[in-house]
């Protein structure tokens, strides 16, 4: 609130005073007073008016500074109505009342949306858990069926059909998992269990889980992960799974994956290297963005732009560094960096 703005606001009042002053001067002159007397009255009038305006300015400025300060301090600014300082002025009190009413409706609306969102999230989570039962059944039926087809004389193509179903079932499983992790990614702290994790075990599990897909795509993988880190096993498994699926999706004709760990002074690096199609340099910085599919995603189809976005989000929440290096046409290296805190380093 500057003086100029304040005076502009009081423009009508000032005009009124000036008009009154003119009228008074005319009246005094007509009733026979001298110029000196009129000037004296006018000077005092102006003086009193100035003092009054100054006082009003200082009072208003103080009030709004206080409000400004409150706004700075609170994190939920829509609660301002409840926090406005008391004021003797009728206008302030009326505004306060109105702001309070408006706030109340905002809060109600927020509550409604939060409730709806929570209900939706809970439903998604329970849906995922329900969906996993049939996925499990299909998986088991395929596993048993393939085994039997291998032992007995089965109709031609039965085994291949079961294999296709098993593969599709796994894709379905991954999509369902992505939904679950997306729903949960906002509140990681509710669902993690940090423990000493053998990276090699997680890598083995992920590769074994995808063995049908990998074998079908003639993938060869070399694993050399001797390091242990403190992290949540399940989340890391999910992240690895997304990256491996990407490596398969964007493979070269003779795909070879190298999965290694390295220890440096700040932590442990987990490096997933493939010799796939690689990523264009101008797209490399954007691959972790939500919904980004890029030229690879369009050329090879079926990219949702969610996999790597989720990876980055989960890594951020778990405090893991994530970056990608790639040479177009020469493969991609995904690097996960697990920091080692000094106080849990048992050296």
């Amino acid at each position, binding site marked *: 609130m500057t003086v100029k703005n304040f005076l502009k606001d009081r423009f009508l009042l000032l005009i009124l005073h000036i008009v009154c002053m003119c009228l008074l001067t005319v009246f005094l002159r007509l009733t026979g007073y001298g110029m000196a007397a009129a000037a004296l009255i006018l000077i005092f009038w102006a003086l009193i008016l100035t003092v009054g305006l100054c006082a009003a300015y200082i009072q208003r400025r103080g009030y709004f500074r206080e409000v400004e300060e409150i706004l700075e301090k609170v994190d939920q600014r829509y609660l301002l109505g409840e926090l406005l300082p008391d004021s003797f002025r009728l206008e302030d009190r009326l505004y306060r009342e109105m702001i309070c009413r408006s706030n109340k409706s905002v809060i109600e609306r927020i509550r409604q949306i939060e409730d709806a969102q929570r209900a939706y999230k809970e439903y998604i989570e329970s849906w995922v858990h329900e969906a996993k*039962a049939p*996925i499990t059944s299909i998986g088991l039926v395929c596993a048993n069926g393939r*085994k039997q087809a291998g032992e007995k004389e089965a109709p031609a193509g039965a085994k291949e059909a079961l294999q296709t179903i098993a593969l599709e079932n796994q894709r379905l499983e991954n999509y369902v998992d992505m939904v679950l992790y997306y729903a949960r990614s906002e509140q990681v702290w509710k669902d993690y269990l940090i423990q000493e994790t053998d990276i090699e075990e997680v890598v083995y599990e992920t590769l074994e*889980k995808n063995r049908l897909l990998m074998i079908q795509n003639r*993938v060869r993988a070399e694993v050399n992960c001797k390091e242990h880190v403190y992290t949540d096993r399940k989340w890391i498994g999910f992240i690895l799974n997304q990256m491996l699926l990407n490596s398969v999706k964007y493979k070269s004709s003779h795909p070879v994956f190298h999965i290694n760990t390295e220890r440096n002074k700040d932590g442990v690096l987990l490096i997933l290297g493939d010799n796939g199609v690689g990523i264009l340099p101008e797209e490399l910085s954007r691959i972790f963005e939500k919904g980004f599919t890029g030229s690879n995603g369009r050329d090879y189809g079926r990219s949702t732009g969610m996999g790597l976005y989720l990876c980055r989000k989960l890594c951020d929440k778990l405090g893991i560094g994530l970056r990608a290096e790639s040479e177009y046409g020469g493969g991609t290296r995904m690097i996960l960096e697990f920091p080692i805190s000094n106080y849990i380093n048992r050296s």
Partner: protein
Amino acid sequence: MHIFVVEDEPVIRRELKALLENAMYQVTAPDVFADIAVQIIESRPDLVLLDVNLPEASGFDICTRIREETEVPVIFLTSRTDSMDELTGILKGGDDYITKPYQAPLLLARIGAVLKRTKGGKDKESTQFTRRGVTLDISGCRLIFQGQSTELTKNEMKLLHLLFLRSGEFVSRMDLVEYLWENQIFIDDNTLSVHVTRIREKLKNIGVSDLIETKRGMGYRV
């Protein structure tokens, strides 16, 4: 080995039973869950596979109830993936916690691991196979023929292991590669051929010429 399966989903129960029976376990899988704890205790299984979400009671409660009577190993099977649940499972006395959807080989491996841990590895797998005079020595990691022996790499050993296990029948290349993947050897089809060639050379060196037969489109046979 007797495994008691508590699973309320009929299809999963049936398939799980088939899977475990294929893996040479004796399986009990009831479809009535009243007094399930008593049923388990009375049938004295070697291992219990316990679903967490059951119509009558929670798997955790059942586990607590079983634990009052016996130390039988319990593996929780569940579609819930909360870390809290996993922790509860372990605290209630579970030996392992597997989330759905599980992969058949992985499930069998975890069951095997728990049984081995609790029973102290009672079932010793035979460590030597002999076929047409050639002996595969698993523990020594070598092939022996008429007193001569040749060293094998881990990959070659696993490959031969499956061929010897299913000796007499053709094992498809797909089955071989899959078996190797299940044993943490992640190779492709071409590498498989390379390995087979190398094994044949090693066999030739100790004087065996036609142990491994190839049949186009069918696979290999020992």
